[in-house]
């Protein structure tokens, strides 16, 4: 499995993501810079969290128009997995690789706390190591995580099993529609999510519920399942 982490000026959870992928796969991911025209051959492309280009204009908007995004689009179309976390999710929606948009949190403030996520769909590589309906812990840290899509789109993604994660009742930190925390694209190889699984993968983090997501995405067996 070859993983690549894309970095934009202003990415700031890139180091967290690199550390997580390295720890879980035993191998450092490849790196790509926003102005690169091509990606190295990759089975998993990750757009990490942060404030790309300051998140000026709209979160992820300028990043979504970077040269590297053409390569990401190509990779996604040819079936590679593309994972966007937080700013990565915002960037994927801005790039049109995922439907909808991420608006300012309903409470208008940045929110960093642990939430509970419901695994809505586990028939996908990313979520294969979770049980359907399983409640997992995961931290969030964002200002613009309020998922919005028009009613038609919403109906479609709900109907097609494109909702990956939902905030458990009472823990929605941002007012997102249908408590949506993460969604797949129609073919299931692109996942965008606001919460940060990379910050909950080892005992030092106080838990490792995020780990299985990467094990799934990297095609690895669960560490605990050996």
């Amino acid at each position, binding site marked *: 499995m070859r993983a690549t982490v894309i970095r934009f*000026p*202003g990415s*700031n*959870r890139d*180091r*967290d993501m690199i*550390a*997580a992928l390295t720890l879980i796969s035993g191998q450092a991911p490849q790196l790509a810079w926003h102005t690169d025209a091509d990606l190295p051959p990759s089975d998993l492309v990750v757009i990490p*969290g*942060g*404030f790309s*280009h*300051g*998140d*000026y204009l709209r979160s992820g908007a300028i990043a979504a128009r970077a040269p590297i995004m053409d390569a990401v689009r190509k990779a996604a179309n040819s079936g590679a997995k593309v994972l966007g976390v937080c700013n990565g999710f915002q960037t994927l929606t801005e790039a049109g690789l995922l439907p909808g948009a991420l608006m300012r949190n309903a409470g208008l*403030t*940045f*929110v*960093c*706390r642990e939430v509970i996520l419901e695994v809505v769909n586990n028939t996908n590589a990313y979520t294969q190591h979770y049980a359907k309906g399983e409640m997992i812990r995961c*931290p969030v*840290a964002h*200002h613009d995580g309020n998922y919005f899509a028009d009613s038609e789109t919403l109906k479609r993604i709900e109907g097609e099993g494109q909702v990956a994660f939902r905030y458990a009742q009472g823990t929605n930190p941002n007012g997102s529609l249908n408590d949506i925390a993460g969604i797949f694209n129609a073919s299931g190889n692109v996942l965008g999510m606001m919460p*940060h699984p*990379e*910050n909950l993968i080892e005992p*030092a*983090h106080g838990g490792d519920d995020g780990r299985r997501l990467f094990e799934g995405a990297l095609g690895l067996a669960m560490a605990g399942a050996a």
Partner: protein
Amino acid sequence: MKDIQVTAQIAADHGLSADEYARIVELTGRVPTFTELGIWSAMWNEHCSYKSSKKWLKTLPTEGPQVVYGPGENAGVVDIGDDDVVVFKMESHNHPSFIEPYQGAATGVGGILRDVFTMGARPVATMNALRFGEPDHPKTRHLVSGVVAGIGGYGNSFGVPCVGGEVNFHERYNGNILVNAFAAGIAKRDGIYVSKAEGVGLPVVYLGAKTGRDGVGGATMASAEFDDTIEEKRPTVQVGDPFTEKCLLEACLELMATGAVIAIQDMGAAGLTCSAVEMGARGDLGILLDLDKVPAREENMAAYEMMLSESQERMLMVLRPEKEDEAKAIFVKWGLDFAIVGETTDDLRFRILHKSEEVANLPIKELGDEAPEYDRPWIESGTSSPMEPHEFAPPHDYNMAMLKMLGSPDLSSRRWVWEQYDTLIQGNSLQIPGGDAGVVRVDGHPTKALAFSSDVTPRYVEADPFEGGKQAVAECFRNLIAVGAKPLAATDNLNFGNPEKPEIMGQFVAAIRGIGEACLALDMPIVSGNVSLYNETHGAAILPTPTIGGVGLIEESDKMARIGTADEGDALFLVGT
């Protein structure tokens, strides 16, 4: 603007006393130009020269086998073993935050982060110590929400976890809030950069964002008391750009790794002036700057304005000439301005060219070394008479009393504040705010972690500055040991009123003595810090608030202690006196 003829009155308007101005004329060897006067006043104001506090700061214990650099650099540097060092400092942004809470607090965070990464360290933790007026004072809500959002807005985007801080409310801060920001970073011991330039004829390089008119006169503002003309001082507000700062961090660390950097200094208060003078004077060199080469954001800026601008996210550096192209490529990659704006000289002069004319030519050493140092008169603070428990009626209902205390603004949970800060980024947070001390593991080390705590109880300092100063250090020390850390060293942010009043100076002197005594007894030297004086409104001073930011080392983080891990049936012990 160069036509403005300097007079004693103009000097007074710059906050210079008649004696100070006379000395300036003597040192300049003539009546200074307007630009020169701006430079002198920036170097000699309280904020940069520490003229009221220097005498007393010198009495603080600053040494120890663990100390690599004590006060005098951008931040203190302390050894943590394995060739790693922790670099940290705390700094105030009180006045700017009162005028524009969001930007004031944000740029305060930006400034302290620059102090840390200028030295070659990657920032790994921040804290913020905040003091506001009464909760129901009409301004408080606006100030609290702006300051907290500003700290979060900058730190979250820059990408450093906030691990601790303080928030208190008291009427004495109604017209003068305190925003003290702390930052710590980790570096390799041999990867530390200082401001001292070495070598003649080397390029002086300007890095980061462009220069605008922001904050012209800001350092003067920070050294003046507030009054009703505050509204007029508003155009000096600086706007922070955490995105540019994050790029600056990455570019600086990348550049340092190439070995291109000889000396580097961030532009803080009175940006270009203080940074250039410091680099030259430290290295016994002169500096020649050509302002036409300085990247400017606005047109027709006068030399005076460029020299005093406090535009954020800028640095000055002395570079190895053979590495120039490599350095430039790194800055272009990060979208930052990079310009050679001058050179080091052997004449010990600070010379400024603007539109091909020399607008300043001053003795560089004297700008800093000859800054006035005052032994301000002070009087011994009386200690408040102790109160006896029997003077108070016991509560009727202890449960209610308990609930009332827990619900009070000063004791209630601060979760609403720190949930607006990213406390988890970098993936090394072992203890986030809410416990005794914040803890982050040392990236790359299997077991080590650092603990951070910020403390002071201003009403104790008011009641007895000496004991209160001691107590602030002791409390910080206790918070560090409570998580299992060995306290290493501390930084202090001394917030007081007008030092020209003997009773305020008395508080200051006694508090420093108390801090010094406690630091000595506990082997927790002060390695960096900041002094903020003139915190007064309409002649009424804030509570004396010497904030202590302590750093401790945990060798084996799996043995770390934390609150909230007790089980039912565990025995409780009370330790101490």
